[in-house]
């Protein structure tokens, strides 16, 4: 049994405490926007926020979490897809297959939280997610566009 705070709600889950947060989100809570790809924290497809910090949830056992820590998944990033990053991503048609994109968006959202106007070098240093289709340049443009949208108060 574990008690977690996910997307603003407190939930009790019946699960072995060694289970990675990723699989609790996906299999106990039905939040499948957070993806499995490598299982060793190498690719970032499973990125969520814990108290606003980007974390690779496939290597975090639920036993390491308490109900006082706020877990945010792609489903909880905004109510209706209106986070500036989501708006920018839609504007630029960033995704291709899309499987890695929730992880990219969550990693980028954590970056913007700590650094509201990142340089290209800041983006390079903090976004280490893998995308095999090759969306990197639109991801970069999307982050810059989101900053612009935020500044112009459109969102």
């Amino acid at each position, binding site marked *: 049994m574990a008690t977690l705070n996910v997307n603003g709600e407190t939930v009790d889950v019946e699960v072995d405490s060694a289970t990675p947060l990723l699989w609790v989100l*996906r*299999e106990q809570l039905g939040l499948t926007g957070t993806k499995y790809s490598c299982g060793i924290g*190498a690719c970032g497809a499973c990125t969520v926020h814990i108290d606003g910090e980007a974390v690779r949830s496939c290597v975090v056992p639920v036993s390491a979490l308490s109900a006082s820590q706020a877990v945010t998944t792609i489903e909880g990033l905004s109510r209706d897809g209106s986070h500036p990053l989501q708006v920018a991503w839609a504007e630029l048609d960033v995704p291709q297959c*899309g499987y890695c994109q929730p992880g990219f968006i969550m990693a980028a959202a954590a970056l913007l939280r700590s650094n509201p106007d990142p340089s290209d070098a800041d983006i390079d240093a903090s976004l280490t997610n893998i995308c*095999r289709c090759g969306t990197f340049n639109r991801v970069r443009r999307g982050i810059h566009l989101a900053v612009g949208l935020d500044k112009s108060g459109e969102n």
Partner: protein
Amino acid sequence: MADRHVSISRRDFMIGTAASGTALVLGMYLPLGGRQAQAAEQAPEINAWVVIEPDDRVIIRVARSEMGQGTLTGLAQLVAEELECDWSKVETEYPTPGQSLARDRVWGSFSTGGSRGIRGSHQYVREGGALARALLIEAAADAWDVPVGECSAAASVITHRPTGRTTSYGEVAAAAARLVPPNTVELKDPKDWKIAGKPLKRLDTLEKLTGRQVFGADLQLPGMLNAAIRACPVFGGTLTAFDDAKVRGMPGVRAVVRVHDNAVAVVADTWWQAKTALDALPVTWDEGPNTKLSSASIAQLLEEGLSADDAFIGNRTGDVQTALADAATTVEAVYGYPYQNHATMEPMNATARWTADRCEVWCPTQNGEAALQAAAEAAGLPATRCEVYKIHLGGGFGRRGAFHDFVKQAVAIARQLPDTPVKLLWTREEDMLHGAYHPITRAKLIGGLDDKGELVGLRVRISGQSILAAVRPAALKGGADMITFQGLLPHGDHAISYTVPHLLIDHAMRNPPVPPGFWRGVNINQNAIYMECFMDELAHATGQDPLAFRRRLMTNQPKNLAVLNAVAERVGWGTAPPDGVHRGLAVCKAFGSYVAACAEVSVDDRGQLKIHRIVAATDPGHAVNPQQIEAQIEGSFVFGLSALLYGGCTIEAGRIQQENFDTYPSMLIAEMPQVEAIVMPSGGFWGGVGEPTIAVAAPAVLNAIFAATGKRIREFPLLNTNLRAA
């Protein structure tokens, strides 16, 4: 009517899913489209491609799979263009392979590979749209009792021109569905396109931004169990035994089952439980005949092939032996290209439900019809009693087209748990160990130049693996695998870019027991490295400019030359690059399109490579969605450069040594160059866009590295190569 099959399948699925009523399915978008079952029952199918809802929504059926390449949107644009419908009302739907079987393959091929999604079906999908438009107009004319010729359609509205009366597609759809279609229909000239040819946004983006897009790995069905699998890690090995008593008591475990002759699976309530129990399961293997297979033994086999007598000829002109003997200068080089894994972000998976008289499979697949055949074979049922529901793919790259091993496994597991849906999901490790690998080859190239520096003879010997021999032997031509010669052939979609008076290109087929497969680009990737890097070698060996040297050999290849000239002009070839920056070129024809690239790179004193800028041009004939072509060009550099920098699977003791992204890295955003894409459709033909540019990515960068360092690299990937060391 025939459409009912589609509707019933969807309704059953949606009702079934809704009935589960658990938190597990909340917030999920179902993979069979957003249409409501009730509306679908009423909605008239105008023809196989077009369904019009009473509220004017247009459902366009797309048989090819969407795996990121944008085909879903591009094909819908082509249908909508001829249909003259309101693009804002367009939705898409996958017909099922079972429906295709029942309707005499009315949707044609489902195969989504070889950059054929659009170029292989543009004619009949446009005709589908045009025929539907004709029927809708005819229905309106009938209702008004006026001549058809006095009516026209635009943006889903039909107008009777003499009176100005209008009606909508939704209003006449039911009547149109009852009419007999005309035998022929005229298609628009692409210069008149208003929807096709435009940089419209994709139809599948929004769900991918919120987590609502369901991939195969995300699927949840009522009562579904989850399976984790392990196959013998040694190629050709089999399963001897497993001790399920050790794991049967573990949380959630429902069954431990043998899968075919080489694998064992644990089935549990959740996938994590299944995987945890599988990790704890004692398994013994019979490792079979390949335990001594290694990268070194394979290299030896291929080395022998470089000078062997047996070889299949791919391209021959003149008398290369004499030309080389008479040449003023000869240049020789040997290149080698490794095994590579597709490494789709979404690992292989499939969900199956089996009963004694029916089998259903939900899976990401590049070829729904092949998935259906695989399901039927594994189910022990005729295909008419099976069905496959396609789901958007989390990457395909060729892994999910010709190979449905994961479907056969899922069905084999489900057969042992009748009437229970089972989702099989591979671990990344399983995915890396049981790929359908990019085949391994080596190439020896000898060029002969006359005293003016003109290339008079070129001899290319390829030694290595055939895909077709392993995957589709019936497609061999007199034993030869012509796919091996992509980019080097005398004519066709993969014709060589140069005219050389005396030429011989042949292939000594050497097939190690490592399963090869189609791969994004496949053989054009290494063939373009061999050819384009060697052209660069020939130019430098005779003190010539690599662009001028190529141009002289391309007078018979004006379209190849045009894309090469376009990148040279944009990059400023012949002007000085920024300090410390060096340039390299590459050009080729692949999948019917003409592509070229120029890379600008620097290499620092420690050998650290920085790729600053790429200029890339593509002439695909017709450009259905230019902004998506740009996305494919950019993405091709990620795929092609990841392969160049990091893509290498090595073998020891009969098994692959790279099991995850820690030892099989992929390029990151920090390594990504600026890409300037030039989309220059010249009309008159239909080329692919998902793969061609991959071929020029690596050689352009390699030639720029040579320009920077004076060192020629001929073995890949670059992962462990110091670019500065001698």
